[in-house]
């Protein structure tokens, strides 16, 4: 038995899409291999790289009153956790208070200090927070302290030379 459909002539209507698909696929593979995406990075901005504790201090321009300094002394150390493993920790001292490894508590303490300064007619933008770390303090801990100062709504934050 002969199939009727086999006898029918095939009319290819429309443009040939095969070369287009080939080129588009090549472009797609190229983009997928060579492209790098913007990573989930964000930045903590400081307008003063490092404040004076010896070398490299920033002197205010003549006629301008220097900002009120608020020093946060940060020390890094290691301690054993509940499972007996050694972990890196930090301790911050500011205004007579000491906070260990707790960013939220430090932020609350700094916020209280900021409010007290504001009550004494010192606006927040005139307070220069100076993070004074020890040489062995880990960078991640400094970022935590920096964030605590940001949480407390301080706007001017910088690092000092190590103690």
């Amino acid at each position, binding site marked *: 038995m002969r199939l009727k459909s086999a006898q029918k002539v095939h009319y290819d209507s429309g443009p040939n899409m095969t070369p287009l698909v080939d080129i588009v696929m090549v472009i797609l593979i190229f983009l997928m291999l060579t492209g790098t995406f*913007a990573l989930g990075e964000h930045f903590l901005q400081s307008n003063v*790289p490092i404040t004076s504790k010896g070398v490299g201090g920033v002197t205010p321009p003549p006629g301008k009153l220097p900002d009120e300094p608020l020093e946060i002394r940060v020390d890094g150390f290691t301690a054993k956790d509940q499972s007996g493993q050694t972990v890196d920790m930090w301790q911050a001292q500011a205004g007579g208070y000491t906070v260990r490894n707790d960013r939220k508590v430090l932020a609350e303490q700094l916020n209280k200090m900021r409010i007290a300064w504001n009550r004494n007619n010192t606006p927040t933008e005139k307070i220069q927070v100076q993070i004074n770390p020890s040489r062995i303090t880990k960078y991640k801990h400094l970022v935590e302290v920096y964030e605590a100062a940001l949480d407390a709504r301080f706007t001017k934050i910088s*690092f000092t030379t190590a103690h």
Partner: protein
Amino acid sequence: MKQLKMPAAVDMHPNVTPLIDVVMCLIIFYMLVAKIGVSTGAERRIELPKSVQGNKLLDPGNTITLNIIKGPRNEPFVTAMDPAKGGARLEEFPLLDASGKPLLKFLKRVRGQNNEFKAVIRADQNLDYSYIEPVLICCTEAQVKSINFATRQEEQVITKGR
């Protein structure tokens, strides 16, 4: 007169139109999102500290990325991309002493070309401050106006209070 009839066309090919639609969407997505041939000089091996606060860089083209790593002798070591050299490869600036003269010269030269540039500090989260400090001193001595500490975004878990 006999009427001529067009035979019915039999489409032997698969319909590629949806495929082309999807692929075109993907290409447009990649072209918009991917950065091809653009390098900021950031060392991807550096594990950045996590942070919740922080902002996106508004002017990323106006920055110099300083990667701070431990050198071969455990000294602070900075790599950065020199804009004057076309950004082909990372330049190395060893900081054997706290003066950091090669880095200072580089930063001063860059500032001479562009007074408003910003420095991006990229350092490993477990790096000691003693490695970062000389770089900050160099930035101050070179009168860099803005320093941006690169961090990675911490995933926030939002729980609703009852």
